[in-house]
């Protein structure tokens, strides 16, 4: 008989204790933490970054990752985007009655592996079970603590005219992997999500002395939405060269078939970087081996993103509106 999550797994009694002991122990670097109501942390001296995010992806598993990979990388990446080394995560799980235990085990294994890859420890957690039909298999919330290592604040306020725009890798793989899984599209070859930790890259950039004026991870809404947010927050126009933006051929082909704009697709292991012109080469030396590239520059005061096409014409690059739906023809 298939083992499944039951309401009693969240009831606080023996079944819940069993679940924690048997399934969740591997998540904790220090299993003694499982015995207390709260984690007591000895933090390094300095400024801390704190963030939270919730994860509700369908399907729960997709090429290149699952909801567990997302829940760790997503929150760790948010910390990296302010120049903070990710240290600790909390893990809140909301499970739906009837969830297959083998699936939960795979997600827990992903959570543990991703935590190791991101260099974070999971220090506190909570599990609830909701009735069948009132959840979507698994919902996850993670909060993260990180230690600021950037010498100067990273954010839109630091952006200056003449700064250069770079991306850390090719765009849209995660979005295509999810849409393919969701709509039953059989892509050949299959495309895997780009879900990955970003802190190792940020750490290298900081070590190389690159002045990071702004960073933004390119999650939902893709590059187009992230650039528009940066432009609005900084009050400066951004100018982007379409031909310089890296999009892998299978992603471009999938977009072409379904009518998607690759720059609207979600990524989970990519960021846009804003650096002073003098630091462009030093940053590219680290980015290019990862598939990253220079894509444009910061212009005059304004609140829009202009894109120059391959043919020298110009158009606006606007954020995604509504939800991505495959078109008819």
């Amino acid at each position, binding site marked *: 008989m298939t083992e499944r999550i039951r309401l009693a797994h969240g009831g606080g009694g023996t079944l819940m204790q069993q679940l924690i002991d048997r399934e969740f122990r591997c998540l904790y670097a220090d299993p003694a933490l499982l015995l207390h109501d709260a984690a007591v942390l000895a933090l390094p001296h300095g400024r801390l970054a704190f963030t939270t995010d919730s994860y509700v992806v369908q399907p729960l598993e997709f090429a290149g990752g699952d909801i567990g990979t997302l829940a760790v990388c997503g929150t760790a990446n948010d910390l990296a985007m302010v120049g903070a080394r990710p240290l600790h995560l909390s893990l809140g799980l909301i499970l739906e009655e009837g969830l297959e235990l083998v699936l939960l085990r795979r997600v827990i294994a992903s959570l543990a592996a991703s935590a190791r890859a991101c260099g974070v420890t999971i220090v506190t957690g909570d599990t609830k079970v909701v009735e069948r039909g009132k959840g979507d298999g698994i919902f996850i919330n993670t909060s993260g603590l990180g230690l600021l290592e950037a010498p100067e604040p990273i954010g839109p306020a630091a952006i200056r005219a003449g700064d250069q725009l770079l991306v850390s890798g090719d765009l849209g793989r995660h979005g295509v992997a999810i849409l393919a899984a969701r*709509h*039953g*599209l059989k892509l050949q070859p299959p495309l895997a999500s780009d879900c990955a930790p970003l802190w190792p890259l940020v750490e290298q950039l900081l070590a190389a002395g690159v002045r990071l004026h702004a960073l933004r991870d390119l999650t939902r809404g893709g590059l187009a939405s992230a650039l528009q947010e940066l432009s609005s927050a900084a009050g400066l126009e951004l100018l982007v060269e*379409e*031909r310089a933006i890296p*999009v892998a*051929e299978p992603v*471009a*082909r999938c*977009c*072409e*078939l379904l*009518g998607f704009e*690759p720059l609207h697709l979600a990524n989970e292991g990519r960021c846009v970087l804003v650096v002073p012109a003098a630091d462009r080469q030093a940053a590219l030396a680290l980015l290019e081996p990862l598939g990253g590239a220079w894509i444009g520059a910061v212009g005059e005061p304004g609140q829009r993103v202009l894109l120059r*096409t*391959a*043919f*020298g*014409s*110009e*158009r*606006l690059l*606007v954020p995604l*509106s*509504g939800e991505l*739906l*495959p*078109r*008819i*023809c």
Partner: protein
Amino acid sequence: MVKREPQAVIADALADADGVAGAVAELAAELARITTRPWTLMEVCGGQTHAIVRWGLDQLLPPGMRLLHGPGCPVCVTPAASLDAALALARRPEVILCSYGDMLRVPGSAAAGGEDLLGVRAAGGDVRLLTSPLQALDLARRHPQRQVVFLAVGFETTAPATALLVRQAVALGLSNLTLLLAHVRVVPAMAAILADSEHQVQGFLAAGHVAAVMGTAELQQLVDRWRVPVVVSGFEPLELLRGVWACVRQLEAGEAQLNNAYPAAVRRGGNRDAQELLATVFQPQDQCWRGLGVIAGGGLALRPAYQHLDARQRFGLVLDSPGAEAPEVCIAGAILRGVARPSACPAFGSSCTPDHPLGAPMVSSEGACAAYYRYRR
């Protein structure tokens, strides 16, 4: 058939992007050289409009030359009455209403509340997104106690797949699958535009994919009847510019002929299998196009042998006449007929946006207003 959009040019030519850009620049220069008058052309298909605006191709044309954006967005022109019927069916507990992705956010008539299918789904209706009509067969087989209704839209490009669904449904003897049919035919709409005394179209870039299915005979009739140059065109920047160039060359020479500037996909006879399938299952009928009104022969109806699969019949739906579909401020009809541009509309970008569309060309990403909103504001 695979639609090739401009991204593919870049994808194809990652190693040769300069080659494509160079060819585009050369063709633009050649176009400028042969052009002596400010010609006005219309690209018929929404995919072409989208590509032109996305790539800023109109910025590469000789001064004074205008591209009018035609009515070739099947999502946009699906009549509000059909949408209202779909919305009403989707609210019924026994119905699974399915359609293509971009139909789900098209609002019904203002009189019926202007809701879309995603709104009905949020309120508890069972609305499913399909990427192929044949998925409706699976749904019908897996849910024998429910009524599966497929809202079938599109030009002659998607109609053959609907015809295949009809044949399969009959072969399998499925009794719980019906169609809410809103297929449209593109050439009658081109004829209707030419019959309008206000029209400004001096030449057409015809929709390459429709021609790939239907062949070029009906376009030739249009050329003969109206003495207007028609050039079958593709969807990539270079293909579109080739179409413009071929059209202008005719106009400058005082000719009116049919050219095929998309030979990679379009043969004179078209796709005979698809045509046969269409002819077996459907017959032309006069049909209302949203924003344009009734177009003679502008739609497809099920032949009598298949009428038991008509959702209107199965559920006893009475379709109201279209009436006032859009608020008065909206100039959708003028835009779809090519006599006005989206930027001329007072509601454009203010009270009318893709999130809150007032009229047909704003509802689908391939409508002219949506393309302008996305790339031009």
